Structure formats: structure tokens, C-alpha cells
């Protein structure tokens, strides 16, 4: 996909300072391209280190291929970069374990995360992979809030969780599938024990 046709993250031009800004180009695993400001990139520790290590100039950004982000699709990456642009310049929270932090979901984030669960879980994956601390915090908070007012059965449907019984059955099935001989050996062992033998061999 050409850069001209690439879905560019919306940026409020009026809010952009006059000085020349540096942008980077990224490409998702389904070949969607994004232009993201340097300041927004700072929200992602992974990308920030990457662009620092690359040492691109403005010309390099235009002339070299977009930086590929192999394991995130365009739909998810668009949300990630929208979030980064909106929160650019904000301090990145540091978890030093001293004070328990209270996570509030700002209005913008709430609207951004008004998406289906599948996409929300992908967003969390992406925030974790790209090490965007505050996006990970708010998206996890959103998932936690989904539990409010639900019964365990409703919540299993929301989170796509197995019940304890299903969990056990799956575990047994996996064990048996992994080692079909194991059960036979176990039965043989039990039989020998019943016959009074102390040693299996």
C-alpha cells in the first residue's frame, strides 16, 4: 500500500507547535502504514528505543521502508497510535511498588476502547508488546470493569472462560492425547498393586 493511501492517524494540526516535527512510518502485519509523531512514539518504550537505535533523519524516514511491526494488525495498530498521539508528552507512570496507583479511564480512552472484546484483547497484547505502560493500565482496567455486576456464568461468557469442570475435562483430554499409553501404564500399575506386588518392574 502506498504512503498516500495509508491510513494516517488523525492529528490535530492546530495543536501542533510551529517547529518542524519528526514523524516515523510504521507498517502493520497486514501492510497498513501509519505516520506517527516522535513525541507520540515516546509513549512506547519499545518503539522509542527502536527509533533511537535507528537514528533516522527526516529524509531517511521518507526514503527508507516503513518500520515493520510484524505481529500487530492494522486495526489494532491504528488504535494504539491514536492513543499515543492523544497522550503524547504525558508522563509515563513508573511502578516502583511504593504507592498503589489508582487507574482512571479518561473519556478519550473510554471512547477509543468502546470496541468488541476480541479487538480489546488485541489492543492489550499490542500495548504489552510495545510496552505502553499507561495504555496497558487503562485497557486492563477496562477488562476488570467488565466484571462489574455480572454473575460468574455471565462473566465466563464475556471473558470466554472455561468452567472448573470444562477446565478439568480439557486437562484430562490433553494429558490423554499427549500420552495415550500413560493411562494403560497407570491401570497396569494399579492392577499389580492390587495383586500385592511392591515393585512395578
Amino acid at each position, binding site marked *: 500500500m502506498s504512503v498516500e493511501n495509508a491510513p494516517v492517524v488523525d492529528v490535530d494540526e492546530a495543536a501542533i507547535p510551529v517547529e518542524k516535527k519528526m514523524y516515523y512510518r510504521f507498517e502493520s*502485519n497486514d501492510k497498513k502504514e501509519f505516520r506517527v509523531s516522535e513525541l507520540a512514539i515516546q509513549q512506547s518504550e519499545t518503539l522509542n528505543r527502536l527509533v533511537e537505535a535507528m537514528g533516522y533523519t527526516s529524509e531517511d524516514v521518507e526514503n527508507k521502508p516503513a518500520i515493520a511491526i510484524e505481529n500487530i494488525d492494522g486495526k489494532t495498530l491504528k488504535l494504539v497510535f491514536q492513543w499515543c498521539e492523544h497522550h503524547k508528552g504525558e508522563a509515563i507512570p513508573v511502578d516502583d511498588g511504593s504507592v498503589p496507583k489508582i487507574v482512571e479511564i479518561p473519556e478519550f480512552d473510554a471512547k477509543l476502547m468502546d470496541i468488541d472484546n476480541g479487538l480489546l*484483547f488485541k489492543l492489550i497484547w499490542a500495548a504489552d508488546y510495545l510496552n505502553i505502560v499507561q495504555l496497558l493500565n487503562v485497557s486492563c482496567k477496562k477488562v476488570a470493569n467488565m*466484571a462489574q455486576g455480572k454473575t460468574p456464568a455471565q462473566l465466563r461468557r464475556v471473558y470466554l*472462560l472455561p468452567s472448573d469442570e470444562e*477446565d478439568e475435562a480439557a486437562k484430562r483430554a490433553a494429558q490423554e492425547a499427549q500420552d495415550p499409553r500413560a493411562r494403560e501404564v497407570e491401570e497396569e500399575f494399579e492392577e499389580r498393586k492390587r495383586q500385592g506386588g511392591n515393585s512395578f518392574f
Partner: protein
Amino acid sequence: MDVYKENILDGMIYTFHFQRFPVAAAHLMLTQMIGSEACTLLYVQGLYKIIEDKKFSLTKPHLLNMPDHILENVVKELDEESRTIVRKTCKKLRALADNHPRRLESLYVHFNDTQNSVSLHFNGLAVHYREKEGGCLVEFSHPFSAPNSMQKSKVIEGEMKQLATQDLKTILINPKLEIEFFGLYTKIGSGFYPEFKELVKMLPTLDHKLHIEHFLWQKLLENKNLDQIIMHDNYGYNPVKKLRDILRPFRSHSDPSWAEFNYPNSDKKLMIRVYEDNIWFKGPRFRRDEEIEKMVDDEDDSWLDSEDESEEEVTDEEETDVEDPATDEDED
């Protein structure tokens, strides 16, 4: 007319790919099945490429596929009520909910035997358990939020004290739980033991030490009807030595193996004795129970043993206590 959603279309393409249909054949079949506008050849080509690059999966992303540190992050953000729900959903989330570092500023247990009710108060949430025909009425409320704020109730099958104890255990079971203030309260005229023996039986079943910074028992010296309380410690976590040191200045003259406290404006006394595994409180209304006495004395008599071991030293300290209690405290 049927609407073919994108994910269903992807599923069909995935199936054609799995069956090794060439791209053109897959596109042709899709066109015949759902119409040419629904899917272009370019789209089928693109998805084939993504499947071959192993970047496409029909599996929906779901919560339990997330790495543990993300799940921990989710569990950490749960409010108290949601936490109790989440831990009932599946084993993995229960294990995480029961093991993440957590701090409660306060956890209070109120037992009211006249109304046959128990309440648990923690982190702005109050859970009330009342006996009701056919089970137990459980009410959730947020007493410190706005009036008429969310209040939910439901009748649960089971015995009231058992249910309350069970829920309390789900809070205390977390070995990383820190409680700043832990309080046990009863209505005057009753005690936790034996009226609330479910709680007393539950505590030793926890296989870890409770982190409690301030323990608030109902004001013992206000309860002149106290019979007796025995705190059992099956794991030897009680700082016995320290407790004995603290109580030493209050030793009873009539029986030095007991510490003695006067009730305010009264000649009634509260007696306390520290054993290796038990702490025994005798109130003014203490009634001898040979079975209990035998049980406690059989278990441990080391309070007396430790005195014997340091008989001379204790005697010295006793003299010091009388003359200058402050000196003794400093030494401790």
C-alpha cells in the same frame, strides 16, 4: 438476504487454503456462493499470504491466552465485589485473584447473635449475612458511598455463619494480603467463641501467616459478661516470647502464670495466659470446663517451664518491676 461478515468470509478462505485450493479457484467458489462483490481476488490473495506467513488464526483472542503478568494487571484492577465474582469463574483466575499482592486498610467482622447475622466490612464494601427461611440473605452495600448507592441482595442456600466464614476465607486465603486493621466485634453479651465457632475453626485451616498490623478485638475490658476465649495457633506464628514479656508486669499475685487486668471502675478481672500454641482469656463470667482445661494444659505447659528455666532471673525482674517498671520495659 444473508449477510456475510468479514470473519465468516475469512473462515471460508482459511478452509479453502487448508484444502489446498489455488487462489483463483477459491475466489471463483466464493463468488458463486456469496456473490462477486463480497470478496475480490486481491482480498483472497492477501489472506492466503497472511495465512502462509502464519499471521492469521481463526482462534479468537481471549483472556486466558494473555501472559500471566497481563492477567495479574487485570486482577489487580478488580474492585472487591468483582474480585469475588472473578474468582468463581475459573481455576486460573481464582489462583491469580488469591495470590496477587493486596492491601486492605481495614477488615472488620461483626457478629450479632441476637439478630443472627454476620457482617464483613472491607475497603468500602459491606456484606451482610442474615438467616432467612430457606437459606441466608446476603446483601452487598457501599456504606460510604452516596445514599441509595448500589445495594444488591440475594438469598443463598446454606447456613449463615458457614457462608460468611467461607467468604471471609476467600479474602484471607491470599498469602500476599496485608491488613492494616483487623477487627472482630460482637454484641455485648456474646463472644466469638463458642457462638461463632465456624470462624475459630476456619482460621487454622489457612496455611500461611496472616499479615495483620493492628488487631482489634472487641474491647475486652468492656465486656463484663465474658466467659473465656482461647486463641489457637497451630503453626507457632504467635510471638509467644514477646507476648509473655509484655504481660510480665501484669502477673497475677494469686497465680503468677496468669496476667491480670482490672475492669475499669470494677473489681472484676480479665485473666490472660500465653501458652506455646494458645492464648487463653478468662473473663469475669468464666465457668470451668474440665474438658477445655485438660485440652489446653495437655497441649502445652511451657509458660511454667520457661519460668522454671529462668527462675532466678524472673525473680530479679519481679523485684525490678515493683521498684521501677520503666526499667523493665526498656530492657524488653
